[in-house]
């Protein structure tokens, strides 16, 4: 009888040990996970900030060779990538950075001229034009982002780049596919819309100003240059929810 009681004690002790060991393993699996997530997030934000700094330095002429296919793709013409038409940047052989061409593209926007007409706003903001002449700022931005955002796109992340002016008129340069992003049945046209759907969205904003000579034909004393404030925003999020 006593031996049975002792055996019961031993087995109970073993059960307690097993329980405490399983608790320990449960703790171990989550140990450092939050720290690692924070460090990864720091790295991703750092990456995005560096990306915005870089587009101020990269010359558009060096982007003319960005193809629509991926070097790593077995199918050289991956249908997921629309033709970004980066060869359009060939004529810009001088030291013109992506940011400079983007500003040129934006600088023909006359502010409130479009009123509430969103189509007009989109056309006049990033339309690859400065007045009637070519200024492919949106194309340059897309071509640069296609290359620079590869670590994110290969990791199953989606991204958007957009420019917002002081009148809150927003236009989206879209992602590298040049097409609208559709998640399920929802079209995502802005970083705000993405933020409403995905809680792990990361975004960087870079404000800049453009001084527009509105009455360039007039003498200097009659000329009143106007300064517009813009914000370039790049956001990224994980496709899978």
């Amino acid at each position: 009888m006593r031996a049975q009681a002792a055996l019961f004690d031993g087995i109970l002790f073993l059960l307690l040990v097993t329980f405490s060991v399983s608790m320990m393993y449960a703790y171990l699996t989550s140990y450092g996970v939050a720290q690692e997530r924070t460090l990864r997030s720091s790295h991703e934000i750092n990456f995005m900030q560096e990306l915005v700094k870089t587009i101020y330095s990269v010359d558009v002429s060096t982007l003319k060779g960005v193809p629509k296919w991926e070097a790593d793709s077995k199918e050289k013409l991956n249908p997921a990538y629309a033709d970004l038409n980066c060869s359009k940047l060939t004529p810009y052989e001088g030291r013109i950075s992506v940011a400079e061409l983007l500003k040129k593209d934006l600088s023909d926007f006359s502010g409130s001229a479009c009123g509430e007409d969103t189509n007009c706003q989109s056309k006049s903001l990033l339309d690859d034009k400065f007045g009637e002449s070519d200024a492919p700022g949106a194309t340059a931005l897309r071509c640069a982002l296609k290359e620079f955002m590869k670590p994110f796109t290969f990791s199953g992340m989606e991204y958007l780049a957009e420019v917002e002016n002081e009148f809150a008129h927003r236009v989206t340069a879209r992602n590298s596919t040049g097409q609208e992003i559709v998640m399920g049945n929802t079209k995502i046209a802005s970083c705000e819309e993405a933020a409403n759907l995905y809680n792990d969205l990361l975004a960087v904003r870079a404000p800049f100003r453009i001084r527009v000579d509105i009455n360039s034909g007039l003498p200097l004393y009659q000329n009143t240059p106007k300064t517009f404030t813009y914000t370039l925003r790049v956001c990224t999020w994980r496709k899978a929810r």
Partner: protein
Amino acid sequence: MNFKHGFIGPLGDDIPSIFPIIVGIVLFTGAMMFAANMVDQRNEFLDVRRATVALAYSATEKGYYDAGTFIEKCGVLETQAKANRVFFVWIIKNYCNTQIDFQALANDPTGGTLLDAEKPSAGLKCWIGGLRTPAGVQATEPESGVMQLPKDSVVFNYPIAVDCADQTHRGLGLMSLVVWRQFAGATVTPPRGP
């Protein structure tokens, strides 16, 4: 004679319970040792990663580096690396007029492609560190193609603008920072520069 059936003494009766108790003690001690080892490894990994983030924060101060600024910055990173007890390789690869082949870099198990600053064309490299070799610590940088990524290394890649070969344009570049833990007895005179 006072005989009790099945009774083998006050200690003898507890013998059956000794086996589960010993198994329990061994299991618990083993699990504790394993857990301590896991926590140490995890802390080490997080510490190297934390150091990498700190170095990367300094390295990404600019969106463009010329050779002179790069060498200056290499010295700053060296000081930071020593404070964090890590070694590092900081490379700027030149992808002017071509596309960045991230998949090739990611699929290279030794990291030889990543560490070769001359591919696809001349780039910049700052190498501060020692590698473990059978002969001990190798203080000088191995020949291109021989160097391999240390096992515990952390690799961070960033976009950057670089001087193209014609020196008149700035094109696409890839800045890579490879960081690994300094080991005991490793005193190296680091080589620098492009």
